Every structure is written in structure tokens, then in C-alpha cells.
């Protein structure tokens, strides 16, 4: 039993905004009160107490990321090292941290739950293996569905009910938590560039299936299955100038459904080429603010190194074959074909400057913090361990303006960031880093400090330098155990995995089996991820 006393508590989900009060913990959960002997006390005077952070969209495990790890040994040499000790596994931080380092780095930041946002079903077993080696944090996975041909074929035939059964079966086979739609319809759409009509044009190889149909059908299916997290959508035309029209159109298709828009920054561009790229964050925010069915995460970029991992639609299952993990292939010119491209965002680059501004503009212009969450689409926009830099930019308008002034003069005409004077409060930071994403994920025991919640708590020294404050929490508790103290990992605990079990008709297997045997090189019976591979599974029945 534990009592955190004297700290200013930010628990926006329970209407607590910086009041000095005690937080009590027993058996890994928050409780109203603890009594008697054996109650340990943490004196949090002069500190602020947050619910543990929740990352709604990140890439920390699985085939693509693991491929990227091998591609950048030069980054690994420069990265933070985790030295082996009797308690800790060795690891490397940096742009694509190893699994152990990922757990330590997230916990070291005060984050206790992460959602791996792109899991191909065929290699879901791999993702779970890595998540099992990702310590401390709790995890969930979104399963890639919008380019699954079994599903698209059914949509082509107009068999929506069966498509729903297949989706449900696939989620359970992958031991997933949510459904992710990446670039629905795929590669063909990429080629059509910024044409706003693309969402209504048939996907290559189909006559009736359009990206629009995929989006609407999946949103409806996720709704019907009553999954805790709505459809998690990565819109078409990611990163392309002028893609704002595609994004707006996607959002219109989603009217009437709940949906989560991933890494919105990459989808809010105007202009008709790289030379005329401009921010359309204001347009996007205006629509978004008026549509409470939507949530989003920022997908902000920060200047510096990153690795962009492009999910390439229908070719998804072949991406893993773009391989040759020998160090010889680490030459940059070799990497573009692989969909994994090490990239440096530069402040002096006009395009990068606009991208940088768009992420922040969205966070500032979307007025309800419960609907926009802090992410960098790690590792695409920046590494997750740089979130404190973004928090600093959000909380300090003078600091932000100073940074804006350093951008190329040309960029200033294409952004509105310099005009925005909103400053986030600590309470709002608690919302965008924890309470909001927990709610969007439907994780009722995360993101708050009310009785019954998991005792995941981040305690920070109050410090006007917000970056420093959020970079080095004084304490981090996971499930009631102190895992981080003064910025160092003190104790390593295992994390759990949240998975959903949507109801489906068992007979769907009889429909799938022959198709599978025809088109897949893996045995049908070996396809579903076995339950025992999911460490600490927390299963939610639904539908």
C-alpha cells in the first residue's frame, strides 16, 4: 500500500485540475484511502502528479520496425545505451530502440501504456513476441485491415455481413485490440496523387471497391463489433501536397461513425507541389472542431533524425521480403525500395519547416484537448522520447515564437503558427498525453487516478522549464510499483497486453479455409496467434 502525498494532482478525467491531494494505491490499483501500518508514503510536495502517459499511436514492435533497426547501425552507435546490470537488460535507444530500451524509455518518460499502430496479421505473431520483450508498459495493437484482400473481395461482392465476420475472426486471429486502415485501397491511390476524387475511384483490381467504400465499411464494421477503440485511420495521400482535400473527404465519409484519425499532421497540406506546400491546419481544425465523432493524434515532426516507414498498401505482405539484413544493404540509396527510409528533418528546409508548424498548429487549433493527442507517429515524425520538446512548445508561446522566427522566411507565409497565442495548461497536457488517448482507446482503467484505475502514475518536479520537467520524472509508478526514480529505471515489471475478442460465427472458418489454402503460403491452422504467446493478456469480449 502506498500514499502519494502533497503533490498537485492533475486528473482531468475526474475533474481534478492541480489540487493538492493524496493519491492512494493498493494492490496495483488506485483506491480511495489506505490505512494501517505498512503504508509507504511518497512525499510529492512541490511536484505534480499525472496519470501515466498513454501513447495512442506509435510503432515500437514488429517486422517493419525491426527491419529499420538493422538498417541504421550508425544511429545505433550514437544512441543512448542501456548498460546491462543484474536488474536491466542491455539495449540501445535512439531512433528505433530495441524492445527492452523501448520499455525503459517510455517508462522513463512517465508513459505506461502504448498502442502499436500497425500490425500485419501474417506477422502478428512476431509483433507479440517483441511486445513480450518490451518491459514495464502495457500494450495493445491495431491490426491492418484496409488492404486485406479477403475483406476487399467480400466488399466487392457486397457481402458486408460476411466481411464483418471475417474482420472479427482476423482481429482475434491476430490477437489485436483495434482495426487500423492504412491508406485504404493502397498503392494505386498513391499514384493518383492529390486528385480529390480518388476516394471514389475503384481500387486497382476491383470494380466496385473504392477507398471510400473501404473506409465507410470498416468504420461500420468496427462500430457493429462494438470494439472499444473506433476505426484507426491513416488517410490516403499521406505526406502529399494538397492532401487536405482527401483528408476532408475521408472525414466526411466518417460522419455518423466514431473514428480516430492517425498522425493528422501528415494529412493537412495545401498547395499543388513541394514548392507550394502550405499548412491547411486551420481548414482541417475548423472541420474537425465541428465533428465530435472524431479523435486524432498529432503526428508532429521535430527537426532531427527519424526513420520513415511507409506502409505500402497491397504490397504489405511482401514488404517483409524486401530484405537482406546484411549490413551491406545499409547504404541509403538501397533503402528507398524497402519502404524504410532514414530521414533528417531540417529546420532550414521549407517543406520540413511547414510540416513542423502543421503538427503544432493542429494541437493548438483543435480546441478540445480530449480529441487531439500528442504523438509523433514514432519513429516517422520524431522519436517518442522527444515528446517533452513538444510539450514545451505547446506550453510556452514566447519560446514557440522564438522557434518560429528561426524558420526560413518563405515558410512563415505558409503557416499560421506565429499568430497563435494559445498556451496549454498542465491539465490540458495531462489530457493530450494520458486521459484523452486512454478514453479514445476505450481503456477505462488508464488515463485517470480515480478509484479502480490502474496505479500508473507519473510524478514530475514542478519546473518552469517544461521540457526538463517532463523529460525526467521524479517517480513513475506502474501498477503501484515504483519503476523509475530520478530518471533511472529502478525496477522492471512486466507489462500486459490488451486484446479484444469480438464475437463471430465459428463457421466463418469454413469459408476462409479454402481461400486461405489457395492464396497463402502458410497453413490456415498455423495462422492464428496462439493465446499463450500474449503475455499477461487482458481480454475484452465485445460485439
Amino acid at each position: 500500500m502506498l500514499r502519494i502525498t502533497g503533490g498537485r494532482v492533475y486528473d482531468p478525467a475526474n475533474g481534478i485540475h492541480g489540487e493538492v491531494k493524496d493519491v492512494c494505491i493498493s494492490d496495483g490499483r488506485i483506491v480511495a484511502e489506505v490505512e494501517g501500518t505498512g503504508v509507504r508514503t511518497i512525499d510529492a510536495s512541490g511536484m505534480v502528479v499525472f496519470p501515466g502517459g498513454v501513447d495512442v499511436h506509435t510503432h515500437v514492435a514488429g517486422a517493419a520496425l525491426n527491419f529499420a533497426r538493422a538498417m541504421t547501425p550508425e544511429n545505433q552507435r550514437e544512441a543512448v545505451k542501456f548498460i546491462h546490470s543484474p536488474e536491466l537488460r542491455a539495449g540501445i535507444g535512439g531512433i528505433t530502440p530495441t524492445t527492452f530500451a523501448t520499455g525503459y524509455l517510455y517508462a522513463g518518460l512517465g508513459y505506461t501504456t502504448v498502442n502499436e499502430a500497425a500490425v500485419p496479421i501474417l506477422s502478428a505473431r512476431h509483433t507479440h513476441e517483441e511486445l513480450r520483450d518490451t518491459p514495464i508498459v502495457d500494450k495493445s495493437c491495431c491490426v491492418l485491415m484496409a488492404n486485406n484482400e479477403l475483406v476487399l473481395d467480400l466488399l466487392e461482392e457486397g457481402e458486408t455481413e460476411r466481411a464483418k465476420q471475417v474482420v472479427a475472426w482476423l482481429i482475434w486471429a491476430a490477437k489485436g485490440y483495434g482495426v487500423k486502415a492504412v491508406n485504404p485501397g493502397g498503392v494505386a491511390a498513391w499514384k493518383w496523387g492529390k486528385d480529390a476524387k480518388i476516394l471514389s475511384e475503384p481500387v486497382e483490381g476491383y470494380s466496385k471497391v473504392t477507398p471510400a467504400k473501404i473506409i465507410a465499411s470498416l468504420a461500420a464494421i468496427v462500430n457493429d463489433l462494438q470494439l472499444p477503440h473506433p476505426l484507426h485511420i491513416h488517410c490516403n495521400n499521406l505526406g502529399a501536397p494538397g492532401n487536405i482535400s482527401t483528408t476532408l473527404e475521408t472525414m466526411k465519409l466518417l460522419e455518423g461513425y466514431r473514428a480516430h484519425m492517425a498522425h493528422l499532421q501528415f494529412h493537412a497540406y495545401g498547395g499543388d507541389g513541394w514548392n507550394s506546400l502550405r499548412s491547411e491546419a486551420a481548414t482541417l481544425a475548423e472541420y474537425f472542431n465541428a465533428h465530435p465523432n472524431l479523435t486524432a493524434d498529432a503526428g508532429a515532426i521535430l527537426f532531427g533524425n527519424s526513420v520513415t516507414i511507409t506502409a505500402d498498401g497491397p504490397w504489405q505482405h511482401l514488404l517483409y521480403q524486401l530484405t537482406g539484413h546484411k549490413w551491406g544493404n545499409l547504404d541509403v540509396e538501397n533503402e528507398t525500395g524497402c519502404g524504410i527510409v532514414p530521414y533528417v528533418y531540417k529546420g532550414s528546409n521549407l517543406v520540413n519547416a511547414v510540416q513542423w508548424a502543421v503538427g503544432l498548429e493542429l494541437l493548438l487549433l483543435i480546441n478540445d484537448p480530449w480529441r487531439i493527442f500528442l504523438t509523433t507517429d514514432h519513429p516517422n515524425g520524431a522519436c517518442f522520447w522527444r515528446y517533452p520538446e513538444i510539450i514545451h512548445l505547446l506550453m510556452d508561446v514566447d519560446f514557440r515564437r522564438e522557434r518560429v522566427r528561426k524558420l526560413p522566411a518563405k515558410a512563415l507565409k505558409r503557416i499560421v503558427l506565429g499568430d497563435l497565442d494559445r498556451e496549454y495548461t498542465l491539465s490540458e497536457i495531462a489530457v493530450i498525453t494520458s486521459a484523452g488517448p486512454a478514453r479514445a482507446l476505450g481503456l477505462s482503467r488508464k488515463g485517470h487516478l480515480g478509484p479502480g484505475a490502474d496505479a500508473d502514475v507519473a510524478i514530475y518536479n514542478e519546473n518552469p522549464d517544461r521540457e526538463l520537467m517532463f523529460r525526467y520524472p521524479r517517480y513513475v509508478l506502474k501498477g503501484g510499483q515504483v519503476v523509475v526514480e530520478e530518471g533511472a529505471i529502478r525496477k522492471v515489471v512486466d507489462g500486459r497486453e490488451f486484446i479484444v475478442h469480438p464475437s463471430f460465427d465459428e463457421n466463418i472458418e469454413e469459408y476462409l479455409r479454402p481461400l486461405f489454402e489457395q492464396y497463402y503460403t502458410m497453413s490456415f491452422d498455423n495462422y492464428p496467434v496462439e493465446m499463450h504467446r500474449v503475455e499477461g493478456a487482458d481480454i475484452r469480449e465485445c460485439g
Partner: protein
Amino acid sequence: MNRADFIIYWGGNPADCHPRHFTKYTLTPKGKHVPMGRKGRTMVLVDVRETPSVRAADIFLQVRPGKDFEVITTLRALVKNQPVDQARVAETGLTLAQLQDLVGRMKNARFGVIFFGMGLSMTRGKHMNSAAVLALVAELNAFTKFVCMPMRGHGNVTGADVVMRWTTGFPFGVNLCRGYPRFNPGEFSTVDLLVRGDNDAALILGADPGATMPQPAIDHLARIPTIVLDPKVTRTSRLARVHITTAAMGISAPGTVYRMDEIPLPLRPILQSPYPTDEVVIRRIHEQVKAKPAWLPASFKKVPCA
């Protein structure tokens, strides 16, 4: 293999070494987008000699031994319409016309795949030969969809790559002496280490270097305390100080293996072994080591966070 209509096997003999590769994965199956199956695909075999795989190929290109890098580099230039020296091309055993034809076919493919075997990656040039294939494939993507994939020889060598990458950040040859992973092929790769005599103990898992490595490496294994875990008493076991018999993967030991395209598959062992699994024995050794005092100096224990 639902899509590939153009397949190149380079430096491999799948008919003998990966017997079902053609029929199950690449050539014969009627793919979703290649409904004609074998008839809808073109297969090119590049090798230094005629092997049984030639029978399955539409085109066989016989390259002189050790000239693969030259050929691939020439292809890279031709893909970009750059000039090459005809006489020096001919030294590779292939003519400029043959290579130009190949480039034309590659560019016109709807979806191309290059599978490269150990005949490429283990011959003179080694990793640079693999790098050359990757570079070529990357450049072909400016024209059409092209991918490539190494034909891995041993059972779960792909798994070893995958596991090492997520645990250490590097695919092989990882040095943990200073408490964190370091990578430098040539410095930390086994044959180099053993030939130089750098190690003072060795644990051999699921391998028989005593039968496959150069003699100086074997000699060093015999000099130092070597420990072998294997389902059989191998040649390495005979020169080792310690041998422990373990259950055979997939026969009597359960678990996971990775296919060469990095798809993980579960094992369904049919027999019950009288021996423990490798995993169990490794863990027991680990427990014993853990019981001893840590060798890392205390000054190492500070963990740099974030």
C-alpha cells in the same frame, strides 16, 4: 507469391536446396494476380554452373565464378542507360546483349522478385554482392515493383537475425562485453574472432563449426573451453570440454521459427524427447551464472535514461 510475374534466382539451386520453393511459393502456384500460374511467370536463373534448377528456368545465364558483382553493377548502369565497356562485360561470361535483354525484361515486369542464394552472398565480394542486388532492386523500383530476398540455408537462421535485431538492435555479430550491444562485422564475426584467437570460451548452439569452419578456427575452439548444446554428439562436441544433448527443434522441441521471409511459424513437435530443450538448458546455465557476483564494475550500473 500472388503477384510476381518475373522471378530471378541468383546464385542458388532451389531444385536441390529448397525443393519446394518453386512449387509451393514462387513458380507453379496460381497466384491471385497471376491466375495462369507457371505460364504467367518468367523465370531467370543466374548461376556459375548448370544445376537441376536450370530445367525449371525460362532463361539461364551462366556467369563466370566471382563475376556476380561485376554483372550486377553493370545491370545497375544499364538500368539507368549508362554506357558500359563491352569487352569487360564479356569477361563476366555474359554478353552485353544478354544483359540488355535482362534489363528490358526487368523493367517490363509487373512485379519482379530476385531470390539470391549463397552462391552470391558467400562468394568473393560477399556482403557487397548482396548489397549490389539490393541497390539494383531499389533502382528498379523507379520503373516497376521489384523486391528481393535472400535464400537462407539453415532452418531458423532468419529467426536468429530477427531476435537479435529486436533484443540488441543488430542482426548478428553483437559484442556485449561492455554491457551494451556493439556491431562490427569482421571484428565481431565468429570466424574472424576464432581465427585471430580472440575468444577464451565458446558456447555453440545448434551448429557444428567443427565440421564447417576453417581449420584455424576449429583449432582455437579446441584450445579454449568450448561448450556444445546439440541433439547429437557432433564433431564440435568431440573437441569440446562440455556437451549437453538437447531435444531437436521441430521434432521434439516446441517453439517458433522464422521462415526466410520473416514470417514466424509455430512448431508442432511429434516426438517426446528424453533430453531437455535448448531453451531449458540455456536458462539453467543462465541461472547458474546469475548466482555469481556481477562482473560489471559498479560504475557501470548507472542507467542513462532518455
